[in-house]
Structure formats: structure tokens, C-alpha cells
């Protein structure tokens, strides 16, 4: 018999996480080789100063912080929504192939040299890959029960993986392969405000779509038939989650490369704190994802200031064992 777990009041949980995100964001701004003070950020943002510290603040530190927070939020939020829709704690954006398809688009841009000719070709191609793949998935699984969606998604994920491998295989230039491999590991270094302006709008639209599905995900926890009987529009819910994920994660991968495990781990950690309610889990996971990626990015910069470890490598390196530990602990401690 397990005792009911301590559930945090929802408002308190949101507030605490938001404060933690804010603190991590400030910490993120303060880290880097150059000493930049608060005054420099003030001058960079509000006075439009053009001296070196202000430029570093505006062109390097601020975009990096915004992207870490926004990408983390996208991954956490869409992971929680995907798990709620598929009612499977192992679901994450990668499972239905959105990350893989975005990566494929980016890899094609790198391979064809498009990205060398035109810098924004890479994120644009990645977005295109994600949206095309999700549109295809939606049409494919439209008339199937939700379990069909997972199967189609898994097939799509392996297909994009195979096509990415094919591109690498055919690549005549070892430098291109090197560049592609490095990009795929996921990173936030050398991103600018351009990346923010390019990615953030899509992410925000995706967030709105995902959050709009939240309440229906609550009803879905009683099963598809009961949810239908409660007045849930299942088709619309499915479309909101799929395309919301496509937009937010597609934009995230387009800007940063593939960053794994956040979409899986964050909802999993936070679920008990919201009493397992899918609707409450969404905003909380967005904040948790932002927090985790900000911290991971700070960790990466502190640990190896010279040759930076790739962010995607670190999230997987820490995330995978942690996830394993979490799962084993829950299995030993009674029903999860």
C-alpha cells in the first residue's frame, strides 16, 4: 500500500519553477570568457551601445540564454503533451520522428551546400523537414486509433534516420560529414539573435497549440471512448499535439540540432508533483525543460571552456543514467 504522495499546490509549483528558471537565466547570462556586468546588459538592451562588452551581451549571451530557455521549454512541453496524447510515459517528440525529420532537413541543407550559400537555409530546411513529416504522419494515422500513430511515427523516425545515414554515406567530402555529425550532436554556441527571431515565433505558436490541448489530455486519461463521451474532439486534440510538436520541436532542432532526453525525462520527473494530471503537467514541464536546458548549457560552458562539449551529448549522458535510476527506483517502490 503506498501512501498518497505529497502533491504540491499547483500555483506554488509553477511559481517556484518560474523563479528557478529566472535564476538560471541570470546565471546563464553571467557565464563566459569575457567579464560582462549587469551594466553592460543594460546598455546593450536599452541604450543600444556598440562597445565590445555590450556587443557580447547582445549578440552572444542574450540569444544563447533565450534559446536555451525556449528550446528547453519546447522539448519539455511537447514531451508532456506527447505522453498525454499517447498515454505512454515513454513517448517523447523523438518517438514520432519529428526530431529525426528536422535533422534530415538540416543534413540535406549541409550536404547540398545550401547552408554554405545561405546561412538560414539550414534552420529553414529543418523546419520544412519537421512540418512535412508531421503532415505526412497526420494523414497516415488520421483514421487509425492512437496506437497506430506511434507505429507510424516509429516507422517515420527510422526512415529519416536511414535517409540521414544515406546522405552521410554518399557524402564525398569528409569535412561535410564532420560538419553534419557535429551539428547533429546539438549545441547552442555561436547562435545569434537571427536564430532567435527565426525559431522563437514558431516555437511560441507551437506552445499555444500544445497548451490548448491540455484539458482534453486530462479527459483522455479515462481512455479514448470515455473521452469522446465527455465531449472531447479527439481529431482536433490529435492535430493540436502533432502540429504543435512539429512547430516547436522542429524550430528547436532547426536552431540547436538534436537535444535528446529532455522531452522524456522532464515530464517523468515532474508528474508526481502535479498529482499525475496531464493538463497541469504541460506548463510545469515547459518550465522544467527550460530550467534543465539552461543548467545543462551552463554546465557545458563551465566544464570545458576551450573545446565545448556538445549539449546534446551532455543531456543524453546525464539524462539516460538518471532516467534508468528513476525507473528502477519506482519499480522497487511499488506501482509507479
Amino acid at each position, binding site marked *: 500500500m503506498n501512501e498518497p504522495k505529497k502533491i504540491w499546490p499547483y500555483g506554488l509549483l509553477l511559481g517556484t519553477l518560474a523563479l528557478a528558471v529566472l535564476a538560471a537565466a541570470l546565471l546563464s547570462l553571467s557565464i563566459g570568457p569575457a567579464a560582462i556586468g549587469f551594466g553592460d546588459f543594460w546598455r546593450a538592451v536599452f541604450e543600444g551601445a556598440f562597445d565590445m562588452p555590450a556587443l557580447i551581451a547582445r549578440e552572444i549571451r542574450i540569444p544563447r540564454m533565450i534559446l536555451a530557455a525556449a528550446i528547453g521549454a519546447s522539448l519539455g512541453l511537447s514531451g508532456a503533451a506527447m505522453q498525454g496524447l499517447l498515454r505512454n510515459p515513454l513517448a517523447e517528440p523523438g518517438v514520432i520522428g519529428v526530431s529525426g525529420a528536422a535533422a534530415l532537413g538540416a543534413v540535406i541543407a549541409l550536404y547540398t551546400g545550401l547552408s554554405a550559400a545561405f546561412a538560414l537555409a539550414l534552420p529553414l530546411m529543418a523546419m520544412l523537414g519537421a512540418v512535412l513529416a508531421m503532415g505526412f504522419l497526420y494523414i497516415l494515422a488520421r483514421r487509425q*486509433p492512437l496506437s497506430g500513430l506511434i507505429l507510424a511515427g516509429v516507422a517515420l523516425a527510422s526512415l529519416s534516420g536511414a535517409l540521414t545515414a544515406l546522405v552521410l554515406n554518399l557524402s564525398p567530402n569528409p569535412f561535410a560529414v564532420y560538419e553534419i555529425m557535429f551539428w547533429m550532436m546539438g549545441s547552442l554556441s555561436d547562435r545569434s539573435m537571427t536564430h532567435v527571431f527565426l525559431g522563437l515565433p514558431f516555437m511560441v505558436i507551437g506552445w499555444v497549440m500544445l497548451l490548448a490541448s491540455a*484539458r482534453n489530455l486530462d479527459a483522455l*486519461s479515462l481512455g479514448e471512448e470515455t473521452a469522446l463521451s*465527455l*465531449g472531447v474532439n479527439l481529431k482536433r486534440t490529435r492535430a493540436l499535439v502533432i502540429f504543435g510538436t512539429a512547430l516547436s520541436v522542429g524550430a528547436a532542432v532547426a536552431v540547436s540540432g538534436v537535444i535528446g532526453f529532455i522531452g522524456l525525462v522532464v515530464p517523468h520527473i515532474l508528474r508526481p508533483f502535479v498529482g499525475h494530471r496531464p493538463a497541469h503537467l504541460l506548463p510545469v514541464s515547459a518550465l522544467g525543460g527550460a530550467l534543465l536546458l539552461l543548467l545543462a548549457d551552463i554546465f557545458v560552458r563551465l566544464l570545458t571552456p576551450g573545446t565545448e562539449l556538445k549539449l546534446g551529448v551532455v543531456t543524453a549522458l546525464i539524462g539516460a543514467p538518471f532516467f534508468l535510476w528513476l525507473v528502477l527506483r519506482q519499480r522497487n517502490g511499488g*506501482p509507479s
Partner: protein
Amino acid sequence: MSLTISNLAVTIPQCAIIRNVSLSLQKGELVGLIGANGAGKSTLLKAILGIRPKQDKKQTGLVQLQGQDITKLSPRARARRIAYMPQEHRVEWDLSVRDVVALGRFAHQSWLGSPSAKCAKIIDDCMTRTEITSLTTRPFSVLSGGEKARVLLARAMAGQTPFLLADEPIAALDPLHQLQVMNLLRQSAQNGQGVLAVIHDLTLAMRFMDRVLLMNRGELIAQGPPQKVLTEENLANAFGITPLSGQYQGEDWLIPWEKSDE
């Protein structure tokens, strides 16, 4: 207000699950839907709600609520009029008992889903009536079968719909809880709800139901008061059994006794 089903048929390729079923359900009556496994009872309930998750299922016929075609109603408007309690006692995430019951108010809340004081009162009331108040914060997964059934019944009651369709609400319950749930359903009917419940227990059907509908291989073969429908001939037809019956203090009773002779 009444729920009228006319000429309903559900087919999958090369097989008719339900053939030409017509019936009506009035507010304030408790109606039992009986028939052997596979007779089409669950399919009939889902067809009334318009729930067809599987492909290749074709449905014809008309379901009307107070003369209005139910497929013309929005899902939300329909949910406010008909509640459904499925056969499986499953909740996917480890929600607390109160959160599960609160989902019964789903169609009455705005999309932000902040429950009003009125909703909270209705939820508390349903929990009191089903005697699950002591379980409020328990996770659903640790409950016994009987507790789960009562929680899901409270959830279905919380919608305060004019009609309730319940798929085997007393399956897998011990005798005490079977009687408790049957009494709750009768109470709901007395409060003006029209209740249609799939039931396999012929004894309880005889005792509690105002009317029973007997299905056999997708067809409605008899309907009316239990005494008129649960006859030796009909039971031999639909189930292949012979009942034992009699009277106790002026009430008819019936128990399934043996396999009937061919």
C-alpha cells in the same frame, strides 16, 4: 425528454453486429440491456453515443434526443445530455480519486478548466452518494475493483446528464456492492435520470429493472417488464438456459438454473 433509437444497424465488412434495432428510453426509468456475450450490447451503447473508434464500421439509423438528431449536436452538447460508463475500469495515469470524479464535469467547464464552487459541490455530493469520500486523495490504481467501479460511477453521475448509459456497472463486484450500485442506479432513475445498463445478472435484472431489452445476435428479440421478457422461452433462445423462478413477498425472483435441453 426521451432518447429514441430507430432502425439502428452497425456492420463491419461481411458481418452485421447490430441489425435493425429500435427502442426508446424515457427519463426516470431504469432499463436493463441483456443478452449473451457478443450479442451486440456494448456496440449498441457506443452506437447510441456515436462512438466508433474502429475503422470499417458502418452505422445506419437514427438516434434522436427529444426529436433532435444526435449527430447534429456538438460533442460537448451531447456530453451534457448523455453520460457513458465504460466496461473497463481503467485510468491511464495515477490520478487521485477526486480528480477522476471531477472529470465528470468536463463538458460543463471552460477550456481553462477551473472548477467552480457549484461543480465542487456536485462532485462532493456524488462522492458521498457512492460512499467514496474517504478515498478522496487515494491514487485510483491502488483501489479494489469495487472501489474503482464506484469511483467511475460517481464520475458518470457528476455530469448530471438526463441520460446515463452504463456498460456492465456491476461486473466483478461482490454481492454487497452489486446491490449498492443497483440501488444507486435506481435512485438516479427515481431522481429523473433515464438509465440504460448492460447487465448479466438476471436475478438483479428481474429485481431492479423497470424494463429489460433482450438482445440476441445483434437483434432486439424482446422488450418490456422483466416478468414478461425473462420467460423460459426467451431465455432458452437468447442464452440456452432454463431459469428457476418464483415469488417472494409478492415480488418475482429468478435465477439461472441449468443448461436448457436442445
